[in-house]
């Protein structure tokens, strides 16, 4: 039991201090290190030489072809766009599946809600790799879905569901669904149902109640959930590799390839820095809109 200082500013910073300390030391400093590395020369066997170089950044948009001429190279830009597209898709799928579930759980009596929440996370106690592996047995040739269809003669050849973008999306949505449901639940759970009742008394249509009352009020949870799904999806490599067949590089595997196989640390770091820049911009937009929302809520 500790008594907190009176001054609200001091209290705020006191609450933030542990987070700043841990993340600052064990995240910010290493990332700064990475930023430095991205401007250095690669050591052939991993690691770096301490010579300044912008090679890594040039490499993202241009390449030396095998004959060592510098030409424009859209490969990495394509990879980035492809990753962003798939992540957005996975996020939307998670939201569509997850929101009604989170809402359903909020409608349950309090004693049962935590139980449902546990049910959501229990599957995630088992290893992600073999859980994803199971999807091969579900979607694949002679799998759980195809076998009954083949036996009853509804189809007579494999549907080819595996090794497609669809399979990757299923895998990603499956991997990150709880990250969507739990924040939305946390937000919905404090929803003041008197507002819903009031809207209903005022003859609001069910759809209107949903879009004008429930969804806006759970927005903090929806935004949090979308971020928690979208960002990890960007760097995912298990589902793309296992279910997508790794035929098209995505960001996760690309960065991995640079640090491991190609042993080009500066390039890997440079890609990470670009990625970081993208996310920082997105975060700033988010913070801006959150502030605007706070102001609107404050006014009402």
């Amino acid at each position, binding site marked *: 039991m500790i008594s907190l200082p009176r001054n609200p500013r001091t209290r705020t910073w006191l609450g933030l201090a542990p987070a700043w300390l841990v993340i600052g030391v064990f995240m910010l400093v290493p990332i700064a290190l990475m930023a430095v590395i991205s401007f250095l020369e690669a050591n052939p066997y991993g690691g770096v030489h301490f010579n300044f170089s912008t090679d890594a950044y040039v490499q993202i948009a241009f390449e030396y072809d095998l004959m060592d001429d510098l030409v424009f190279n859209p490969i990495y830009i394509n990879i980035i766009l492809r990753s962003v597209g798939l992540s957005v898709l996975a996020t939307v799928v998670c939201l569509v599946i997850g929101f009604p579930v989170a809402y359903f759980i909020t409608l349950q009596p309090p*004693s049962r809600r935590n139980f449902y929440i546990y049910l959501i996370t229990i599957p995630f106690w088992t290893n992600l790799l073999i859980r994803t592996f199971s999807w091969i047995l579900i979607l694949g040739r002679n799998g759980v879905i195809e076998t009954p269809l083949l036996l009853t003669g509804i189809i007579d050849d494999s549907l080819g569901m595996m090794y497609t973008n669809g399979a990757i999306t299923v895998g990603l949505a499956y991997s990150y669904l709880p990250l969507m449901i739990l924040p939305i639940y946390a937000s919905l759970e404090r929803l003041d149902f008197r507002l819903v009742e009031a809207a209903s008394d005022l003859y609001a249509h069910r759809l209107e109640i949903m879009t004008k009352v429930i969804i806006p009020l759970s927005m903090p949870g929806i935004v949090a959930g979308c971020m928690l799904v979208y960002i990890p999806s960007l760097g995912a490599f298990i589902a793309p590799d296992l279910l997508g067949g790794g035929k098209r590089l995505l960001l996760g595997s690309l960065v991995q390839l640079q640090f491991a196989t190609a042993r080009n640390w500066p390039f890997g770091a440079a890609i990470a820095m670009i990625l970081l820049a993208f996310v920082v911009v997105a975060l700033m937009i988010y913070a801006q809109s959150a502030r605007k929302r706070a102001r609107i809520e404050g006014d009402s």
Partner: protein
Amino acid sequence: MKRRHLGVGRYHGLGTWTVLCFAFLYLPIGILIVYSFNASSLAMTWTGFSLDWYAKVLRNDSIQFAAVNSLVIATISTLFATVIATAAALALVRGGRFAGQTASIGLVTLPLVVPEIVTAVAVLIFFAHLELNLGIGNVIIAHTTFCIPFAFMPIRARLVGMDTSLEQAARDLYSSEWQTFRYVTAPLLMPGILSGAMLSFVISLDDFIITLMVAPAGATTLPVYIYSMIRQGITPEVNAISSVFFAASVLLVSIYWLLSRRVMSVPKGSGANNMSGGSRT
């Protein structure tokens, strides 16, 4: 705390949708468990019931060691991350607007946005320069760091716009700051804290790349062990130990379920559980 009117705010098919969602979540687990009892080492070929893979797990010290490491690391990191995230969320949401607010939000979410492999390599270099060798402690530090945003997001989502009138009432009734937090704020916040803690736990339990790079001797975790089976192929031994994890989690939930029912059946007015619905009574 009476039931809200049935019908209002309810939608057709919500239950069905939830059942389908759970089927989506549990189907792969079911398959995984079934194949842990398969005599064959091939996932697709069922050659008969067998407990061989469980026997192998019992004989395999390395995999057991890794499993225990995973649980210990996940538990401790979750604890740290949730406490730090709760403090940060309270400060950020309740602290009003202040210089450094956006920076602080950015900082807390930073571990989420940096690609894992980059964090992994960066932290590896950093730890090596510090000559930091706390054994399993290295991994706990790394996990705590990247679990913070996962704990933070649901807690913050819960806190934003949370009714402060109950807390004010408690303060007006001369309860101390600590009492207010313990008996009013914390219970109100509990769904967020619980969500955050659960996310941290499963995220820590599944992490591979960062652990692979950061773990010093004697700190191999289960995911690291599993991914390192490249040359041998992943055997149903992994299914077996995953099924054990699954059973353990089911057991924990059942115990929780029984305990909470007992708590729930206690007459009202005595604590946290009744508070959780407070804002809408």
